[in-house]
């Protein structure tokens, strides 16, 4: 049961769900949650490949760095969201469309 394929499928499902969240959520924070999901999906893949394909622990290490990046990403992104909120009194992304103009 614990095979590479099953791990990859779990990762794929997680990725798709994360992507869906990014695509469909209006709230910026929900989008961020989606991004976290995507990153976790990637991590699962790293660790799974590392586990099944070699004796080494490179996968684990890379996953660690991904976590680090996720942390900084979350911090910066939240700061941005707070800034947006302060300027526009909203965190709904469809109201934040200054790119259009």
């Amino acid at each position, binding site marked *: 049961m614990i095979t590479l394929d099953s791990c990859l499928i779990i990762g794929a499902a997680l990725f798709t769900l994360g992507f869906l969240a*990014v*695509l*469909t959520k209006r709230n910026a924070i929900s*989008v961020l949650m989606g991004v976290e999901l995507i990153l976790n999906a990637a991590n699962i893949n790293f660790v799974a490949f590392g586990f099944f394909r070699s004796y080494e622990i490179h996968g684990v290490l890379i996953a660690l760095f991904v976590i680090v990046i996720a942390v900084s990403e979350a911090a910066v992104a939240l700061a941005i969201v707070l800034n947006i909120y302060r300027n526009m009194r909203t965190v709904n*992304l*469809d109201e934040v*469309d*200054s*790119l*259009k*103009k």
Partner: protein
Amino acid sequence: MTLLYLAIIIWLLPLLTFIIQIFFGNRLPRKGDWVVVGAMFIDLALALVIFGNVIYKYNPDFRAVLQFDWISLGGQDFPLGFVLDNVTAVMLVVVTLVSALIFLYSIGYMKGDPLYSRYFAYLSFFAFSMLGVVLFENLFGIYICWELVGLSSYLLIGFWFEKDSASDAGKKAFITNRVGDFGMFLGMLIVFSALGTFSLEGIKNGVESGQLSGTLLTAAGILFFMGAVGKSAQFPLHVWLPDAMEGPTPVSALIHAATMVAAGVYLIVRIVFMLTPVSTVVIAYIGGFTAFFAATIALTQNDIKRILAYSTVSQLGYMMLALGTGSYAAGLFHLMTHAFFKALLFLGSGSIIYAMHHALHAVNNDADPQNINNMGGLRRKMKVTFWTYLVATLAISGVPFTSGFISKDAILAGTLSFAGRYPQHFLLPFFGFAAAGITAFYMFRLVFKTFFGEFKISEAREHIHESGKIMTVPLVGFAVFCFFAFYTAGNNSISLSSPGEGWFYDLIKPPEQTAMTAAEMPFSEEIYEQEELPAEPGASHSYAIFLSLLIVGAGIVVSYRTYISKTISAETWAAMYPRLYRGMYNKWYIDEFYHATVIKLIFVWSALCRWFDNVIIDGIVNGSARITVIFSWFEGKFDNIVIDGIVNGIANATQILGWFTRQFQTGRIQNYLVGFLIGIFVIIIFRMM
């Protein structure tokens, strides 16, 4: 060899004083004149040591050469070299002696001038470059110093640069000299391209071996002579020398009478081995003509220095005449004697001008202190000046027992024997003798008008004084050298009239005239005989003495009768031949001729060049720019109507399309992401199919 090193020290000492003077002159006590004069006397002493050695050796073939590398290009090399032979030794003494005495004289003459120290700096520089001309064994080296001599002449002529006439004269001198140097440089180019060397020794070998011959050799000789024509103020480049009298009088004496102008003669002496028959004849004719021509001008001039200037030109013509007719030693000999008596004449004039200037200044009379018509009766006031002046006048006129007599006589004898062998050149002795007579006449005219009779500006008479010791001592010094005995002393005898047995002729031997013997004399083949050509005054000598004495005596007598006893009226003669008189007085309009032709042409041509640049070339450049502008205007019209029509149509279409596509631009990243994904799917599906 030691002597040669000594000579190089002589050469470099003035350079050292020049550097000291130009940088520290004003800070030294007495503005540093003692440095320069002292150094020059040391030079004189050293030169005398060399000369004594040469006399002691008494060897006509004495020659020491020092060669050293200067420029080396790997293939072509340009070494330089110094030479010390009898000619050099004599020239060294002449130059240093004249220089030393004139430097000394300058202390008095230039006293109180605001640029006193710079004057001595220039004098040192002149001495340095002149000695360089004498010492270099190499045409390139000679050329360098040749031009530097011209530079110092330029600087000293224009010394009182606030006077426009002085700065004009300086410029004229330099540029006229440059014209001559142009010829000389071309001569050097010919020689170098044929022989690959500038060394006189090398050229001599080359000419002897026939590597350079024929027309090219003749051309080279004439071109070198062109350089000499410029420097020695021969016709037609003589115009600068009379103007050069704008410089201080000691400068005129030193540079424009005694030494620098003689450099041309010296150059011809140095390259005499490469003269072909044609070039010697050219030299002889130009020299002879100049001697005669300048003398005629001197006849009518009133400026004391200008008379002397034309007389210098005339005497230099003699020297050239001598060289051209093969009297090699006589030419050089006359150079030496002339240096002394002409320097003396100038210094005497300087003394007169100095006295006149102060006298006129004292009574606030602005008459020209140099005009001989304003003078007269000075012999009582200025005894030393008068007697020394008289000695010099006798010498230049060629009165027996003076140095001028023996040297001029040798030249005239040479021309006579030359004409004896080539009767078609009868004009040469004619020029020589005629010039001798005229010279005697105008020199005595000068003396009579200045020293005899009554002083013309009576109120200033009381203020005329003899010059100070520092000026009269050099006069006496030079006067001593106007006596024949210095020159004719031989190994064990002193000849009264002929220099032929003196040390000079013993030591200074003409070279075997290789070019003359190697080439054909093109225009007189039947008369030309090889062994006769080294023409020295021989049988015609006594004949020449007689004739010249006659002519000179006549000149003096006529002069006496015109200006003292007044039995001949100069004015009547002038009125009888007005054209002749005006021609002489206006120097035969040579200057005017140059102004109207050469100089005018250059200015017109340069204005034309400028016009061409500004109008034609810039016109093309700017015109092409303008055409572009006009073209672009038309293009603009075309654009507005035709192209813009199309463009606007396209723009409208684009606008509609843009409105359509803008609907997809929501500004929401999420929409974009969806679009992006769908795009990916489409691509993948396409790839799969």
